[in-house]
């Protein structure tokens, strides 16, 4: 009986080698990189994201932060304003915290007393302030990507965000692509 349709041993070996190459390639694709989808706009969660990012950067891990939805409030610069907003965008701008120093705590906010107490304790116990965290993050080359769609929804414009060395606007596909090549992916 003819066996012309069955692969020969040589062909099988060739196939295995090709697969082995592909597996090696995939394994090497995972970079020493941390990707975080930062969605919460609470002070505690933003700080957690920043502390983890700074620790990772200190360990020479590349860090890419994707800011989406409520977290955008953290990136607002209270001194900056953007023109040409509609009524709803203006309302959002009015209601949401103006920058990381104005964020609420997810627990024990107590009408603003909580954040004041936390900041007092942080200072007392020599924890970096949130201002310092963003400054260090910028110096360490931590990349911030702002979700274009969330910014559009809330009516935030790029010119309203903080002065940060590596801040850009992009879509969810950017996060997916970058997270796909990261060895650590987090959602905060």
């Amino acid at each position, binding site marked *: 009986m003819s066996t012309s349709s069955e692969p020969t041993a040589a062909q099988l070996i060739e196939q295995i080698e090709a697969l082995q190459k592909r597996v090696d390639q995939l394994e090497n694709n995972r970079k020493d990189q941390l990707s975080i989808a930062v969605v919460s706009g609470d002070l505690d969660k933003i700080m957690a994201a920043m*502390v983890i990012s700074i*620790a990772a950067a*200190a360990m020479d891990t590349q860090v890419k932060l994707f800011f989406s939805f409520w977290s955008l409030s953290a990136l607002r610069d209270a001194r900056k304003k953007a023109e040409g907003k509609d009524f709803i965008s203006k309302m959002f701008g009015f209601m949401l915290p103006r920058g990381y120093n104005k964020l609420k705590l997810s627990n024990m906010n107590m009408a603003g007393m909580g954040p004041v107490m936390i900041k007092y304790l942080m200072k007392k*116990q020599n*924890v970096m302030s949130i201002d310092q965290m963003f400054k260090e993050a910028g110096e360490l080359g931590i990349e911030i990507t702002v979700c274009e769609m969330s910014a559009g929804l809330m009516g935030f414009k790029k010119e309203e965000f903080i002065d940060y060395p590596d801040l850009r606007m992009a879509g969810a596909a950017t996060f997916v692509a970058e997270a796909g090549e990261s060895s650590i992916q987090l959602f905060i």
Partner: protein
Amino acid sequence: MTQEELKAVAVAKSVDARGTACPGPLLEAKKAIGGVAAGDVMEVLSADEGTKVDIPKWCTKQGHEFLGTVEENGYFKIYLRKK
């Protein structure tokens, strides 16, 4: 290394990170290590308990040799040899 050996080791660079809490000491260690020659010893002074665990992890990742920790009064000294 024993405590006596650690205390006697020649330190090329000392980083005083006692004024910062996590992740400050790690960050200061990262900033300082660039100025240390390969094979030389760096010490990190910290009052933050977490640093005792974090620095060895950092050493493992970066390939530096963690030598040990010496407890002082209210803080500790962490020794490592740069790869």
